[in-house]
């Protein structure tokens, strides 16, 4: 009996030590996961995020023109989200960004120009990353608090380059000098802004 009791006590002490080790392993694993998460996260203050200064337009620099408009919203005011109707949230003429010239950097896509422009003009924008989209391209969910589906079930943002609606996502379209990019809000899947190929006629 005596022997048994002694052995039990020793076993208990040994077990305790061993279990503490296991707990430490778990803790270590958790810290590792947290470290990876924190390392992959970039936190910026509001002042840091908004770009105060962009590349200056010089005679030899390549440029593109960018504009953001939402006139179609006013033709479909009945289905517009009530929260957007009140006050001065949307510009009364539908022009969020008048045609402005931006310097084109090497390999810039439509998305690069747009994100640089909204950061400079302090326009709100939310997008879905290319890794989350089935098309392998960035998808623009909302600009200036005007989101997809904010104005009826067929509404959302589309872009036009030199009068044509490209058939690819905005982060896959590389731009050249002198092109004109327009971001236009549609309420009828492109029909109301002249994008026939999506409007369902063909």
């Amino acid at each position, binding site marked *: 009996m005596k022997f048994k009791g002694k052995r039990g006590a020793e076993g208990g002490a040994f*077990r*305790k030590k061993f*279990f*503490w080790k*296991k*707990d430490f392993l*778990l803790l270590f694993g958790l810290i590792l996961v947290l470290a990876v998460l924190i390392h992959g*996260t*970039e*936190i*910026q*203050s*509001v002042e*840091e*995020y908004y770009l105060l200064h962009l590349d200056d337009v010089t005679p030899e620099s390549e440029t593109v023109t960018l504009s953001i408009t939402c006139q179609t919203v006013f033709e479909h005011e009945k289905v517009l*989200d*009530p*929260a*957007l109707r009140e*006050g001065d*949230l949307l510009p009364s003429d539908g022009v969020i960004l008048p045609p402005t010239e931006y310097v084109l950097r090497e390999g810039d896509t439509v998305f690069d120009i747009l*994100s640089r422009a909204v950061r400079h003009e302090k326009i*709100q924008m*939310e997008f879905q990353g290319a890794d989350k989209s089935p098309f392998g391209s960035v998808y623009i969910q*909302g600009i200036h*608090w005007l*989101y997809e589906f904010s104005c009826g079930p067929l509404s959302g943002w589309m872009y036009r380059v030199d009068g044509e609606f490209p058939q690819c996502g905005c982060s896959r379209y590389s731009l050249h000098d002198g092109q004109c990019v327009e971001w236009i809000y549609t309420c009828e899947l492109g029909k109301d802004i002249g994008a026939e190929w999506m409007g369902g006629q063909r």
Partner: protein
Amino acid sequence: MRGNAGRENAFSRLHPAVLMTFFLSELLLTVFLPHPVLQAEALVGGLLFCLLLWGGEFLRELGFYLPLFVLVALTNPLFSHNGVTPLFFLNGNPVTWEALLYGIFLAVSVTGVLFWCKAYSRVMTSDKFLYLFGKVAPRLSLVLSVALRFLPAYLAQSKRVERAQKGVGLYAGESFTDRIKNRLRVFVAMVSWSTENAMEVSASMKGRGYGKKGRTNFSLFKFTSADGVFLALILSLTALTLCGAAAGMKNFAFYPRVSRVELSPVSFAACLSFGLQSLLPALWEGKERILWKYYVSKI
């Protein structure tokens, strides 16, 4: 004499039809009226009632609800970037004040509904549920009552299994990892128990002739004048709240800018009536307890 004479709380002694009306109205209004004032009232009412029902035990359970509240409130701004007031930018996406407020609103709503569901499971016992719906839809009501009872019964049984295992001397490790392992082992045992139990319940109910004609109920409930007053009160309060909802309270928006809380007479009345309705169980419970203390003191 009421059926459940042994129960200590006054509110559950009301007629099952009244209780059912109250819980349906309270839960549906809380879920479908996205207005911050109404949600806060539902939360406070549910919290007070649960405190009166469980006392100190419930305070300990707040250790679960509080982290849940914080988690829900903080998750929303991480995934929703709408709103006019950016606080800071996370990986190029704004974390906004509006999204944070909406997260808090969601957390208030979720915990409020959880509190009321908890109170429901305590007050509307399965005999009351079967009394109400056993005759109209025997099968459905049995399935529903078994399903609603499942979680509490499951927790009680799993505690029993755990205690038995500890009593035998198994799985008494002190480390956190070991405790998780033990829980998993208990869980495996519980899966087989729960399937078996569900079958046993239905077989036993069949053996007792459940759903046959001429079968009476285990508990009998009489609809008294107090029940009538309560029912009328609940229905009129619900109607008033619905008037407020129809007058535009349901259009409260958080994005892109938080709407203002309207101070029109209709919405004010709706807030008042829903607040009274949410506090009704706690008030009734408190009143009865004070009366009881008073009577005891006179003996």
